[in-house]
């Protein structure tokens, strides 16, 4: 049944009934719809000790982070490591990182839907959830890094008796609007595609879950008219959300690029950041899928074909990132402007050299590794590779935000930076917050989009071409 010489994959975990061949195609599996429903609902309903332990640990980190944040508000931003000229440090770095992570979801659910790539089917919901939660977490940072967060509402345009209005020429305002738009869009997209599965869950559960799904399924019955309208709305969403996703990270990049800070004032920033976001986001998605697949025993639905395709896409994104990085670097290096030279030398041979070489190796080695099928289809290898990508991309943001601010036009104003426990605690809090949201999501909502898989199964048959038996996808919409 496989379309290539199957690489035997060792599975050390205990088998879930029935036997699922990891290398077989999901959309051709011999399972009834009822069995698929059951297979999706079971891990959702089961919450073992491991789950509660995880929730407890994450909640602990979040509580500690909230304490650090209240400490920050109480005592001021001096409790962080920021100084002059490094006014933006870990908070903005992690902000950019999370926005980057959020781009993977749209890539998978919208772009691949339009391209009719069927391997997206079991992962769209997990990807969209990642987008929504990454944006929620990222949206905290513009508040956290404010000097006077209690006045943050002044960024909202409301008529007031002081005749004060926010400045729409400021990239921070563009950030506010764009991130809100993207968050609203991805949440609505996630929800809309979820409705038929909530109806399925409503029909198969009892108790508080049944009541919860009843409310959010909005009375869905699955009539032809309902499907027709839903499919049309999803098509419009898929098209509309792509410009949004391209614009959000471009706008975030313009936070840096519109200043005349050397190395920031670069026109390549917008596509460079978008490409970096796709690269790091898809890598984070792969990591999350591998972990969830293991933790929720979704081996039936997340098979080697999915990770194979995802790995190839990550590799292509990585090559794109490398191209944009190089396009920016060669122009800076060649121009030989004194401040830019100082910035490059601090990275290549100065105090920041360890971080720089970490960034380059952690971003480039995975591209090579992902060319190997063995890496792509072995969960453990793939997890290590994509985590390396995330480390590299986080370091890249560190160097762009913090590294560049350390040098500027007047050498008297050169500076340095050291993080403090407040910053690290708050960053850890957001990572834990994301993980907690995701964990709870996986237990409250069917993680795998069941109706999309069933729809995909409608399309797939086996066809004979000469001596070959090939899986064939029908070109129905």
């Amino acid at each position: 049944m496989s379309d290539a010489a199957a690489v035997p994959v060792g599975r050390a975990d205990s088998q879930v009934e029935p036997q699922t061949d990891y290398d077989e195609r999901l959309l051709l599996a011999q399972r009834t719809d009822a069995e698929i429903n059951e297979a999706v609902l079971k891990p959702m309903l089961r919450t073992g000790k491991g789950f509660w332990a995880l929730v407890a640990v994450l909640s602990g980190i979040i509580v500690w982070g909230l304490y650090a944040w209240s400490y920050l508000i109480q005592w001021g931003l001096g409790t962080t490591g920021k100084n002059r000229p490094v006014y933006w440090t870990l908070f903005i770095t992690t902000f950019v990182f999370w926005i980057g992570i959020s781009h993977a979801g749209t890539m998978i659910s919208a772009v691949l839907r339009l391209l009719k790539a069927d391997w997206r089917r079991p992962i769209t919901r997990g990807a969209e959830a990642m987008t929504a939660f990454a944006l929620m977490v990222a949206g905290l940072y513009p508040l956290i890094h404010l000097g006077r967060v209690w006045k943050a509402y002044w960024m909202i345009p409301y008529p007031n008796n002081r005749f004060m209005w926010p400045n729409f020429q400021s990239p921070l305002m563009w950030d506010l609007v764009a991130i809100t738009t993207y968050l609203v869009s991805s949440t609505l997209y996630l929800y809309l595609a979820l409705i038929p599965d909530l109806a399925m869950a409503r029909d198969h559960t009892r108790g508080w879950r049944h009541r919860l799904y009843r409310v959010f399924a909005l009375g869905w019955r699955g009539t032809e008219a309902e499907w027709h309208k839903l499919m049309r709305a999803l098509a419009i969403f898929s098209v509309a959300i792509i410009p949004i996703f391209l614009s959000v990270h471009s706008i975030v990049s313009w936070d840096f690029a519109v200043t005349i800070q050397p190395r920031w004032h670069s026109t390549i920033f917008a596509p460079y950041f978008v490409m970096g976001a796709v690269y790091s986001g898809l890598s984070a998605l792969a990591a999350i899928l591998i972990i969830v697949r293991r933790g929720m025993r979704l081996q039936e639905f997340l098979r080697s074909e999915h990770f194979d395709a995802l790995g190839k896409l990550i590799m292509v994104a990585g090559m794109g990132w490398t191209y944009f990085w190089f396009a920016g670097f060669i122009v800076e290096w060649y121009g030989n402007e004194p401040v830019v030279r100082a910035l490059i030398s601090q990275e290549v041979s100065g105090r920041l050299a360890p971080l720089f070489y970490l960034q380059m190796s952690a971003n480039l080695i995975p591209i090579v590794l992902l060319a190997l099928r063995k890496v792509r289809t072995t969960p453990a290898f793939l997890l290590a590779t994509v985590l390396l990508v995330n480390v590299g991309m986080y370091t890249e943001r560190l160097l762009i935000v913090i590294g560049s601010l350390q040098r500027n036009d007047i050498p008297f104003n050169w500076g340095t930076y050291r993080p403090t426990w407040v910053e690290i605690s708050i960053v850890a809090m957001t990572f834990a917050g994301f993980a907690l949201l995701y964990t709870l999501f996986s237990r409250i909502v069917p993680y795998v989009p069941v109706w999309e898989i069933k729809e995909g199964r409608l399309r797939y048959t086996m066809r004979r071409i000469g001596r070959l038996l090939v899986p064939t996808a029908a070109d129905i919409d």
Partner: protein
Amino acid sequence: MVRDVNTLIETKGDLPRWAMVVDLDRCTGCQACVVACHAENNVPVAGETSAAYGRWLHWIIVQRYWEGQYPNVKARFNPVMCQQCTEAPCEPVCPVFATYHNPEGLNAQIYNRCIGTRFCGNACPYKARTFNWFTPEFPEPLTEQLNPDVTVRTRGIMEKCTFCVQRIRRVEMATAAEGRRPTDGEIQPACVQTCPPSALVFGDLHDPDSRVSQLARSRRSFRLLAELGTDPAVVYLKGGETNV
């Protein structure tokens, strides 16, 4: 050379364009201007460790560079304050308009509007802006010395040199009450007033006879980072080898 105020900024009627001239050939690096600014504008003291980490709060700072090797070492002094750029890169980036261009050409900082994003601090190429990292403390009896004309800022607010706008306003109001315009030299920011060798001169660039205008036309004049196009209102003079 200094060019006229950019026509994008509407100067109503014949409003003055305030500017400062810093004569580097006269500056001795005594830092009296720094102290005077602290006193006049309620600028807190950051302390030695904070200052070493780059968190000093001086609105005007005397940048000191060492040139050469012993025994031919020379110290160069460069007093730098907010350059009050005509095309300030810090102004468009503030999301709440806490900094804007007022009709007299000053880059105004509205303390109680600032929410502390520090975007302006990143955008300023002179890094002339400082930030209140902590709530400033004025140990007794320094509280007796606070200037009632200037707000005392709390933590989370960006601040910078304003050309002592409170002094400008005070003189303008007083002379308006007398029915005349301020004469050249009547308005003096704290640093200008204090400078012992009179290295700092302040005045109206729109008045061609003011001392500032005459000095700005000198062949010794240059401006900091002029190639960036920020069109600053602070003109530096440097010509001879008097600064040894």
